[in-house]
């Protein structure tokens, strides 16, 4: 509904103007770090890389090292 989206836009604008958005962002960042969310997310993302993608990349790297053994 456009009125709602309009409303949202308006509210966001207000938030930014008054600097409140910035404050909220900082607060969120601090809290997420405190509770370890960021580290968890990092680990999770690393795990999320599918095996196939990982294997392919490792292959490429080994080939490169073999090629340029003397650095």
């Amino acid at each position, binding site marked *: 509904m456009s009125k709602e989206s309009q409303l949202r836009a308006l509210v966001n604008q207000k938030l930014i103007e008054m600097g409140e*958005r910035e404050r909220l*962002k900082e607060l969120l960042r601090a809290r997420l770090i405190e509770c370890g969310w960021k580290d968890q997310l990092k680990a999770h993302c690393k795990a999320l890389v599918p095996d196939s993608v990982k294997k392919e990349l490792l292959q490429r790297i080994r080939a490169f090292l073999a090629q340029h053994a003397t650095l």
Partner: protein
Amino acid sequence: MKMEAMSLSGLDNTKLEALAHDIYSDLVEDACLGLCFEVHRAVKQGYFFLDETDQDSMKDFEIVDQPGVDIFGQVYNQWKNKECVCPNCSRSIAASRFAPHLEKCLGMGRNSSRIANRRIASSNNMSKSESDQEDNDDINDNDWSYGSEKKAKKRKSDKVFLRSLKQPVLLNPNSPRRSKSLKHKNGELNNNVNTDPYKYNYNSGISYETLGPEELRSLLTTQCGVISEHTKKMCTRSLRCPQHTDEQRRTVRVFLPGPSASTLPDVDAVVESDGYDVSDGQALMNRLQWDGSSDISPSDSASSKASTNNSDSKKPKKKKKPSLGLSSSGTGGTGGGTGGGPGTAGSGSSSQGVLSLPSRKKKPKLPAPPTPSIYDDMN
């Protein structure tokens, strides 16, 4: 931009909730984006895997908490007590002093050449001036030579100055060696002392403690001699030096030597006696010496009653010296005539003045004998 007036109060709760959630998820997306940027930077800079060190290497770099050692485990004053052996002179030198010592020892570095030049200059001066005096035996005496070396270092600048002015080097009337030769060479020394203040402007002082009584007297006849508060040295400028008043000079002359010391008015007397016959001038000077010394007394002591007389006549005395001289030469025994003499009672006054001086100094015997002889001469 056209703003439509929208009110949040019109919405119901669920809608408000939805709105709030939306705003929240926006913020979380931003946070994730931020994380992505951080990781990307870490990977690019190569510190992404740093948190994965193994336990063993973690142990190596643990914080150290022992006494006497910093948190890295290093000892702070490890080299404090170490001593090094100098390769040049084979002495054992403390580590912190090693570098400057090496500089001096090897003769390299900025200061060492300067010091060497100075030493050469001063040893040249010393050997030149004292080769014909009997101070050479001082050199053999260990104590003296040590002390003189130390003093020589301090007076070094005096000698260097004189050297540059191409003076005959007999500069230091105040060096301890001087006092031995002084008795024989009083006249010479006087001459040199006379020339010094006029020929060089180096305004160092002389420490009155090292002067013998004769040196002191000769100094005071020619130089200002006022002792500076901070350096405890005597001013070596002329008797009319603008830095010090006559009051100060009189004070010094009372303070330091015995009452037989020469006094300020000598300068004026010398200046003004040019107009008189030599004999009269001499007598005048002698007379004025005593008058001067009696003058000193009033300026110093507030207690002596005789001083009131004298203090009055202080200024008139200076101006009326010619008249004093004339009257003294003319009238002889009646002495000071008008205002010249302190107390103006002739020999009586001067003896009185002179006696007031020793009363201050607690040396009652001194000036009495010479006074009659002066008046005898004049008579």
